[in-house]
């Protein structure tokens, strides 16, 4: 690796850091064997964490940060004055293999600015994945961010080599997309999502490999005037209609070379955090978008408390819940009880009537759950859920304990 390549790596990693997706999970187990290199274990591994608290799992870079498009939220838009660089296919392959052999990464997440034409760009990205897999027997994780404007055949070729394809929607509504990303087209993006979803479903039925870890997308939050409710509605549709594995939320971040159309101040990072929590409730806890949004005000989530607690405080009549009797669905709605704690409760209560002390061993969130629970030896005194200061009491002293 020479100076020039290290320099390019700096530029093209910097240019890729605003994409929130980094996961390396969800692929079927696979190994490179005696001739190849690497393995995927299904779970994914975070190999390091940066001082922004995010993990480094994949080598996340752009093939190039030259771009024909002019999306205002993007540092790489054609009217930005940033330094430009461009990798060759061979250079990306060399970097991926080199870092992988030193156990720095789980694989590659390759994205790109659009150069010459969307097809040309997509083909270069596909060639990186093909070279890694076919010429080097690389069995690590590969995530390609597709160029939605590329021809369908190229996106299908990419799916043969990648573990995951992502198609970034970036903005939740068509009118924001039109205003902020003039060359992009919401219809095209969703058509590609539909195409990819169809191929994934078929391949699964026919036991072929096509983007086995599914597809994901990213929404930028806080660059336009979209409410949390409309963001979550978009996500709900994407999960249902296009079978997406993940929607990533990326709080709009100040960038050097910002456009004057953008808001001056970034949104609070807490907003992104709340959206992830809400997304979780949507996918694993049986909540509807409507229920989640009703916990906040004016379509925005409550930044002070997590969305599950917000919902519970507005639906106090449904609490307290008896841990020894309630069904799984209702236990999942108790603030502070996660899915794993609920499963443990269900399996433990077949053998014994659970007391508060037992619950303390089953869940780390008991302090927050307490007002919403009935146990064998515990009934909230005088209907604690009716107390007006409940929100206050739950939020203030424990903020660092309660969330994670």
């Amino acid at each position, binding site marked *: 690796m020479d100076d020039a390549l290290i320099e390019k790596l700096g530029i093209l990693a910097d240019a890729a850091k605003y994409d929130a997706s980094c996961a390396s999970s969800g692929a079927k187990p696979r190994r490179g064997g005696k001739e190849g290199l690497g393995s995927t274990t299904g779970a994914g591994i975070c190999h390091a964490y940066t001082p922004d608290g995010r993990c480094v799992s994949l080598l996340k870079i752009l093939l190039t940060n030259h771009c024909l498009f002019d999306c205002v939220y993007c540092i790489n838009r054609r009217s930005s004055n940033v330094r430009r660089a461009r990798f060759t296919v061979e250079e990306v392959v060399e970097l991926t293999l080199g870092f992988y052999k030193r156990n720095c990464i789980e694989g590659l997440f390759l994205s790109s600015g659009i150069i010459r034409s969307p097809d040309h760009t997509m083909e270069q990205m596909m060639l990186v994945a093909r070279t890694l897999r076919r010429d080097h027997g690389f069995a690590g994780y590969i995530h390609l961010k597709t160029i939605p404007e590329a021809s369908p055949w190229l996106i299908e070729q990419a799916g043969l080599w990648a573990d995951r394809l992502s198609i970034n929607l970036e903005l939740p509504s068509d009118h924001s997309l039109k205003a902020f990303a003039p060359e992009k087209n919401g219809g095209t993006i969703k058509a590609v999502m539909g195409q990819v979803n169809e191929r994934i479903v078929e*391949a699964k039925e026919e036991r072929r490999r096509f983007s086995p870890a599914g597809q994901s997308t990213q929404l930028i939050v806080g660059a336009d005037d979209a409410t949390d409710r409309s963001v979550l509605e978009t996500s709900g549709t994407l999960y249902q209609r296009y079978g997406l594995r993940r929607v990533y939320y990326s709080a709009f971040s100040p960038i050097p070379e*910002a456009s004057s159309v953008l808001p001056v101040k970034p949104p609070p990072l807490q907003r992104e955090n709340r959206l992830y929590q809400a997304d979780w409730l949507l996918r694993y806890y049986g909540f509807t978008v409507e229920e989640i949004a009703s916990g906040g005000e004016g379509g925005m989530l409550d930044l002070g408390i997590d969305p599950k607690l917000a919902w519970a405080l507005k639906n106090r009549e449904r609490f307290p819940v008896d841990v020894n009797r309630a069904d799984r669905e209702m236990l999942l709605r108790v603030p502070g009880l996660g899915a794993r704690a609920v499963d443990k409760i269900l399996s433990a209560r077949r053998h014994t009537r659970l007391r508060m002390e037992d619950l303390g061993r089953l869940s780390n969130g008991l302090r927050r759950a307490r007002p919403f629970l009935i146990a064998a030896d515990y009934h909230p005194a005088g209907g604690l859920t009716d107390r007006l200061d409940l929100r206050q009491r739950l939020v203030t002293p424990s903020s660092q304990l309660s969330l994670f």
Partner: protein
Amino acid sequence: MHTITLREGADLDGFRRAVRRLAAAGTAPDKVLWSVGAPSLFGGEAALASEGGAPVFLPQAVGQLIETVVCHGDPERYALLYRLVWRVLNGERALLDQHADPLVHRLERLDKAVRRDIHKMHAFLRFRALPGPDGEERYVAWFEPDHHIVEAVAPFFVERFESMAWTILTPKGSLHWDRRRLMSGPPAERPDAPAHDRFVDDRFAEGWQRYYESTFNPARVNPTAMRAEMPRKYWANMPETAAIPAMVRSAPARVQAMLEAEAAVPRRRMPEKAVAAMARQAPDSLADLNRLIQRSEPLVPGATQAVLGEGPEGAAIAIVGEQPGDQEDREGRPFVGPAGQLLTAALEEAGIDRGGLYLTNAVKHFKFVQRGKRRIHQSPTAGEVKHYRWWLMTELGFVRPRLVVALGATAALAMTGRPVAVLRERGPMAFDGWNGFITVHPSYLLRLPGEEERRRAQAAFVADLRRAAALA
């Protein structure tokens, strides 16, 4: 009182032998004293036959928990595990379901700590490349795990880096892989691992540090979250972490600078260029399209080459078959195998010049299963047909025939997008944007058993071709 002495580290075999003996004798947990003795790391005493005691049958989950917890550094681990085994054997088969039980809770915490340690070793261990004596690279790593997990992590590294020669050194034992065999070695000390500056590794460590610095977004600085997942004790062995203090220190100033900077004055460049480039990208000739098809990977691996369409652009009739067969795959031309010859004969009989037609297939690659020396043709699936549909439609767009004749069910599926019962629906049919005609595939005629039946079917096929020619 029984005293059981196990070797240092994770002595699963020793523990198993002891449990068999104790269980056979019906020894209660409070009558056993567990101690850890001679430091012999990797099964030095494994030769000891399992004296006394028949195997003890435990639920699978208990066995798994034991395997992990013996790796823990807590000296009490064996006593706790034996208490668990005792209770499971004495009427509490489902004890592990009782997560609120204090013993189970305690063991689950030990289990979790070991799993976390294993996970962190998978994640935070870094190899450095050393040139070997034979010029071949050898990868070496130094790591300090909290628990006795060196044996437990070995399968992961063998599987992942099977094609590399590597060594992992730790204070709790070492591992050596020569691409065929795994060897365990004694504990190592830090100086046993070559110092950083003695590594010649194509500057990858330097490149990695640069990557790490560049991927950090100063507007999101949150060192607490970082340390929760990557505690300081791991930093010494990870080259990239040297950059952390400076990254954190400079973050506020970098953000301030971004916020204070005035919005960038855009360099005016014409958006028309981008839009035009997008419009230009589709293949603009049949030759161009054929180059794309040839460059593309078959959806089903194995085919020698893509088989392209053949015939003049502007042909009045395009004939769409299923997919290339064995002979087509070898020669790279459509309709040259037995079915192709039958088609040629039928065209002749119908008085149609094959040279004036455009002949192609719905799927461009041969798909087969190998049976001895023979490659047995496999029909394409609906998914495969759809995958190739974009190519077929683009291809027909260049040829612009007046009529498209679909031979057989696969071609009919490609043209209509739905399953078609060919024998029932044969005849003219409007395809998506094309005047169409459906008839059987000549290979269907080859498969008919009776001579008489075949003659009749062939006559019907020739009649279909005549009708199609009249429509075009």
